[in-house]
């Protein structure tokens, strides 16, 4: 089984159990020392964990994730450190991991080395918010060589033909951005969100996870039928920022 298939499988399992949950956490936030500890806590209620690689210019992120990102960089968190730390604790973690990273840290690391290192660290896929499909061939091929997938993002504005391409080319799952906007925006989920997700789910043979703006049990329930799972980012990072236990927060998202 290729690494990216582990993601797909875990999400399908989650979906079957009432909806998959993909929490997002910034690596090494709030403290690098507690990275693995936080990851374990988050993973307890997760089907897949999305780990954010901090970047100096997170152009698709709102204030919460920006803050966590800048704080982590300040404390020395880098892609290299993340992969090394994950590799060290490879044995303890069986939840499939997806790295969310802007392109430049990946480029700086070097694609050739990256695939192998990521695989060793238990990374099954990448989400690269500033790498649209047209620019992604080299990266996809380099990861594919190690069985690691590149998750494609789609949005409500994605035209139908493009949606098909993206769903076909995605690996692991399809990331359906719920709103036109950045992460952590204050906006409500739009009225048409379920129609949109149902449409994506129809086009995609992979599980579809909805992300951006999902903060509460109510949000989760609303999207339950329309997508395989949900991605919860800013709301979780806020919990981490406050120093609260992520378990309680994530458990509440799952349980009615």
């Amino acid at each position: 089984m290729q690494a990216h298939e582990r993601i797909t499988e875990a999400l399908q399992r989650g979906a079957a159990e009432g909806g998959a949950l993909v929490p997002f956490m910034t690596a090494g936030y709030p403290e690098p020392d507690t990275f693995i500890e936080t990851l374990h806590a988050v993973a307890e209620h997760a089907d897949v964990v999305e780990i954010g690689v901090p970047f100096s210019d997170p152009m698709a992120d709102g204030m919460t994730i920006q803050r966590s990102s800048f704080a982590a960089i300040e404390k020395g968190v880098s892609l290299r450190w993340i992969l090394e730390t994950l590799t060290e604790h490879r044995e303890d973690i069986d939840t499939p991991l997806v790295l969310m990273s802007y392109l430049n840290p990946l480029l700086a690391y070097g694609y050739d080395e990256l695939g192998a290192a990521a695989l060793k660290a238990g990374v099954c896929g990448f989400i690269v918010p500033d790498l649209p499909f047209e620019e992604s061939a080299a990266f996809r091929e380099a990861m594919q060589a190690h069985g690691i997938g590149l998750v494609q993002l789609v949005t409500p504005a994605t035209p139908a033909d493009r949606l098909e391409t993206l769903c076909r080319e995605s690996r692991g799952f399809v990331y359906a951005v719920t709103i036109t906007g950045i992460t952590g925006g204050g906006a409500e989920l739009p009225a048409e969100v379920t129609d949109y997700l149902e449409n994506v789910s129809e086009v995609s043979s992979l599980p579809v996870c909805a992300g951006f703006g999902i903060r509460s049990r109510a949000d989760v329930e609303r999207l339950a039928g329309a997508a395989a799972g949900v991605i919860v980012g800013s709301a979780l990072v806020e919990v981490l920022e406050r120093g609260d236990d992520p378990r309680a927060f994530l458990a509440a998202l799952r349980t009615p």
Partner: protein
Amino acid sequence: MQAKPKEQDDAALLAALLAGELPDARGRFGAFGGRYVPETLVPALERLEAGVRDYLREPGFQEEFCHELFEWVGRPTALTPARGLSRAWGADVWLKREDLAHTGAHKINNAIGQALLAKRLGAKRVIAETGAGQHGVASAAACARIGLPCRVYMGAVDISRQAPNVDRMRRLGAEVVAVESGDKTLRAAIDEALRDWVSDPDGTYYLLGSAVGPHPYPYLVREMHRCIGDEARAQMLKQAGKLPDAVFACVGGGSNAIGLFHAFLGDPDVEIVGVEAGGIGSGLGQNAATLATGTPGVLQGSYTMILQDPNGQVQETQSVSAGLDYSGVGPEHAFLQSIGRVRYEAAGDADVLDALDEVCAEEGILTALETAHAFVGAREWARKNPGKTMLIGNSGRGDKDMSTLVQHPTTRARHAGA
């Protein structure tokens, strides 16, 4: 960008550029450029690209644009024989006077051109970023002229060091939003503008202020500024009777430079030099000399030269001039450097201040701190190449820099003692 492009013939690449074959269909100048943006922006950029294709060469648009440049911006800007500098340097020095353009810098060419395009594309509102405030003022003015509401993102640090420009933007009807994230300067402002655009890609037109960012911006902004070089080349032939031996411009994002350089790229005997901000030293974080000291990477939508650490984190920059204080650079410059057509070098803060004073004293022109970088490069070149004809892009005026300048008293005053 992935695998190193195999050795290609630089001359062939230059020829392709001059033939209009670059940027290519993927928005690339050789290895550089492209479109690295969130999926949400892809349709918006495709619409923009279609707009550029449909309108930019359309006679009606060109006529409207040219009219605004002529009637409102005040183009053509003058070409000034710099007699004092010529004497001082032992050269024949000419200045292309973008400081005389409306709002005080070349930035207005691009701002009014894109504002007209925004109108054609049916935009409901315009957003822009600004560092020194020049592009913000230009955007505010252009939007008022065209009748579009305008919001300008500006780093909180820049807001406090460029207060007069903030007031000018507001007076021109723009809303100025302080960016408190990141380094709170230009790079953070671009990030924030992109975030705004992601949130409303349909109704919003992002009026980017330099030849940077995702395709088609580097191309679009260059086309908006090509009047600088086209005019200057014709003026040199008419006023100086010949082409310059060398052309100089300062390079921040690279918009004034690309606008000036383009007309001369096909003149093989014209040496072309771009001058970046050398700041206080050559170490990472001490300057903004992206081309001279950076490495390739992706920043804010484009594969280009950037200032980054080994982890790919983009680094803060240092420069006495807010408008050059940027960690990236337009991809076309990275390309022109890679094929050896343009040389890029850095000018340090101390030399820049001295050059600014020299231009004041010799020509009675208070040039911008950004612009003064070009004069440092030119002066050094003149030292090594006596008796040559030189053209310098005087990209803007230094009125906005007074609060910085008063901290560095001039030593060149020629007083009228009683």
